[in-house]
C-alpha cells in the first residue's frame, strides 16, 4: 500500500517536472554597486511534520529572491532577532509556517512583519504540491516587493534560453533563477534565438530543420507552427510588447532586411528601406520606436528608428562592433554587446549614445544581454567559467550570479510579467 502511494507521488512529481530536475549553482560576485539595497530579515519557516523540500527550504528561496532582486539584501537569522535586525537596519522580515498535509500537499503561510512592532504587513497562504513550493514562494516574494515598493517584482518571471543537449542546441525555459528547467524543442537540427510571445503564450524561435534558418512559433506543450514561410531565410525575432506583432530579419541573396509581420495571418511587409543589412531589432517599452543593428557605416552599429520606419538615427559610435541592443523597460537606456579585440562585453548607454557604462570586463566573453521586465536586472551569457552559462547581474553590473551549470547555455531572453495586471 505504502509502495503504491510512493509510486503515485513519484509519478505526480515526474508529471510536474516534465524534462529536468532543477539545477542550481550560485556564485555571487560582489561588485561595487550604486544600487541602494534595502536590508530585509529572513527567518526559517516553522515546520509542522517532517517536510522534504524538493530543492530548497522556503527561507532559502526567499534569500535568493531577495539577493537577486537588486532591491534587497537578505539578513539571515535562525530565529527572530531584533538586535541583529536593528544592527543591520532590517526594518522588515519574512518568515512563515509550513505544514505537511495528509494528501501530500504542503500548506505555506507566509508573512512579512515589521521588525520592531511585529505587525503583520502582509500574509499569504498557499496549499501546493511539493514541487510547486518554489513557485508559491516566488509569488509571495513578488507580493512583498509590491507591498514595500509599489512595483512588480520578477521572482515569478522566467527565462528562455538555448541549452546544448546531446550536442544539439535546444530551446529550454526555467524560472528566472535557473530552477525548474524544461526542454521545449526536440528537433535535432539547431534551435536558437528564443523570444517570448506577448502574454507569455509561447515562444518564437529559429530552427534549421530545412537546412536554413526559419522562424517557428511553439507553445509550451510543444505545438509548432512555421512562420512567414513566404521567405526562405528568417531569423532575429522581436515581439512588439503592445500588439504582439513581430519584427524579424529576412535574408534574400546577400541582403538581410527587417520585416514586420503578423503571426496569425502570416502577412509581412518590409519595415525599412535602406541599402544596408539590418538585424537584431528591439522594441521600445511602448513600441513607439525600434532599435536595430546595421552595417551601413561599414561595421555593425546600433541605430534607432520610429515605429513607422522613418527617422533613422545612429546611436553607437565608439568601437567597431556594437550589436544586439535592447531597450530597457524603463525606457531611458539601452544595453548592447560590443566586441573589442575579439572579446565581447556588455555596455549600457543613454538613448543618444552618451553616458556609456561598461558592465562586464576581464571575464571571458559576455553577450546577449536581456532586461528583466522590471528593468532592475540583466541576464546574459558568459564563458568566464570555461564554458558558456547564463548569469544575472544588476543593471549597474554588480551582483553577478551564475544561474545555470552543465553543458553550454546561451542566448537568454527574459519573459514578460506573467500577470499583465498589477499584483494584488
Amino acid at each position, binding site marked *: 500500500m505504502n509502495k503504491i502511494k510512493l509510486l503515485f507521488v513519484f509519478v505526480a512529481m515526474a508529471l510536474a517536472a516534465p524534462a529536468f530536475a532543477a539545477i542550481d549553482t550560485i556564485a555571487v560576485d560582489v561588485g561595487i554597486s550604486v544600487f541602494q539595497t534595502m536590508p530585509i530579515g529572513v527567518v526559517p519557516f516553522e515546520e509542522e511534520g517532517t517536510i522534504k523540500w524538493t530543492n530548497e527550504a522556503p527561507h532559502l528561496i526567499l534569500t535568493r529572491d531577495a539577493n537577486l532582486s537588486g532591491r534587497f539584501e537578505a539578513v539571515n537569522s535562525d530565529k527572530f532577532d531584533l538586535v541583529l535586525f536593528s544592527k543591520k537596519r532590517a526594518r522588515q522580515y519574512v518568515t512563515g509556517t509550513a505544514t505537511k498535509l495528509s494528501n501530500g500537499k504542503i500548506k505555506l503561510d507566509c508573512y512579512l512583519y515589521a521588525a520592531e512592532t511585529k505587525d503583520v504587513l502582509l500574509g499569504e497562504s498557499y496549499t501546493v504540491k511539493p514541487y510547486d513550493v518554489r513557485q508559491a514562494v516566488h509569488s509571495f516574494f513578488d507580493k512583498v516587493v509590491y507591498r514595500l515598493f509599489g512595483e512588480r517584482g520578477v521572482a515569478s518571471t522566467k527565462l528562455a534560453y538555448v541549452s546544448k543537449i546531446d550536442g544539439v542546441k535546444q530551446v529550454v525555459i526555467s524560472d528566472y533563477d535557473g530552477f525548474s528547467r524544461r526542454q521545449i524543442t526536440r528537433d535535432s537540427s539547431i534551435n536558437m534565438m528564443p523570444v517570448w510571445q506577448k502574454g507569455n503564450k509561447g515562444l518564437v524561435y529559429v530552427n534549421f530543420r530545412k537546412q536554413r534558418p526559419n522562424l517557428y512559433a511553439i507553445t509550451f506543450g510543444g505545438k509548432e507552427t512555421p512562420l512567414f514561410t513566404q521567405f526562405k531565410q528568417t*531569423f532575429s525575432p522581436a515581439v512588439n510588447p503592445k500588439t504582439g506583432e513581430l519584427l524579424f530579419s529576412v535574408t534574400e*541573396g546577400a541582403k538581410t532586411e527587417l520585416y514586420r509581420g503578423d503571426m496569425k495571418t502570416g502577412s509581412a511587409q518590409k519595415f525599412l528601406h535602406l541599402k544596408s543589412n539590418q538585424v537584431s531589432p528591439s522594441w521600445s517599452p511602448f513600441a513607439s520606436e525600434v532599435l536595430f543593428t546595421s552595417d551601413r557605416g561599414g561595421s555593425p552599429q546600433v541605430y534607432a528608428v520610429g515605429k513607422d520606419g522613418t527617422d533613422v538615427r545612429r546611436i553607437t559610435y565608439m568601437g567597431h562592433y556594437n*550589436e544586439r541592443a535592447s531597450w530597457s523597460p524603463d525606457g531611458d537606456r539601452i544595453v548592447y554587446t560590443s566586441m573589442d579585440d575579439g572579446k565581447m562585453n556588455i555596455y549600457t548607454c543613454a538613448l543618444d549614445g552618451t553616458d556609456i557604462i561598461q558592465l562586464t570586463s576581464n571575464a571571458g566573453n559576455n553577450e546577449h544581454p536581456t532586461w528583466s521586465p522590471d528593468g532592475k536586472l540583466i541576464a546574459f551569457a558568459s564563458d568566464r567559467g570555461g564554458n558558456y552559462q547564463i548569469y544575472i547581474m544588476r543593471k549597474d553590473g554588480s551582483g553577478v550570479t551564475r544561474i545555470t551549470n552543465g553543458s553550454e547555455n546561451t542566448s537568454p531572453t527574459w519573459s514578460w510579467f506573467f500577470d499583465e495586471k498589477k499584483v494584488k
Partner: protein
Amino acid sequence: MGKVFKLALMGTAVALFAWGCSKEKPETDPQPQTAPEAPADSTLNLDALVADTLDADSLARLEAERLEAERARLEELINRIMLEDVYFDYDRSELTENAKRLLAQVAEILVNENRFIVTVEGHTDARGTEDYNISLGARRSTVVREFLIAYGVDANRLVSVSYGKERPKVQGTDETAYSKNRRAHFRVSIDQ
C-alpha cells in the same frame, strides 16, 4: 575531429577516383570486340543461341558496369566539390584570389555536369553575435553563388543559405580555427 573527418573524406575520394579509373578501362575495351561479332553470327544453331544469350548477359553486365563507373565518376566529382571550401577574411565577404581560382575549378565541373544541384552554405567564425553572423554568412554564400553564375552555371541549380556561426568546421578559439571556419561550403545533390 574535423581533420580526421576530412582525411577520411579525402581517402574516400582518392579511393573512388582510383576505382573509377580502373573500371573505365576494361569497359571501353570489350564493347567494340563483342558488338560486331554478334550480328555476324546469323544462322540458327545451338552455338549461336548460347552465344546470343551470353552476349545479352555480358551486355547487361557491361551496362551495369558502365552505370557503376558513371556513378563513381559523379561521386568523385561531388566529393571534390564538397572538399573545396572557399575561405574568407575576417568580417569580409569578398572573394580572395585563392578563392576565385578554386571557384573557377568548381564552376568548370558544374558547367559540364548540369544535373548537379549545389547548395552553397555560408559560415562564419565564432566571434560576434549569432544574428550578425547569419547576415555575414548570407553575404558569403551569395558572393560564391554569384561568381558561379557569372561563370556560366545555371542559377536555378544554385541555392545559397547561411548557417552563421552555428556549424564550425574546426573547434577552437584561435586564428587557426577561426580561419578554417570563415568559409563557404558546398553540398551537392543530383537532379534525377
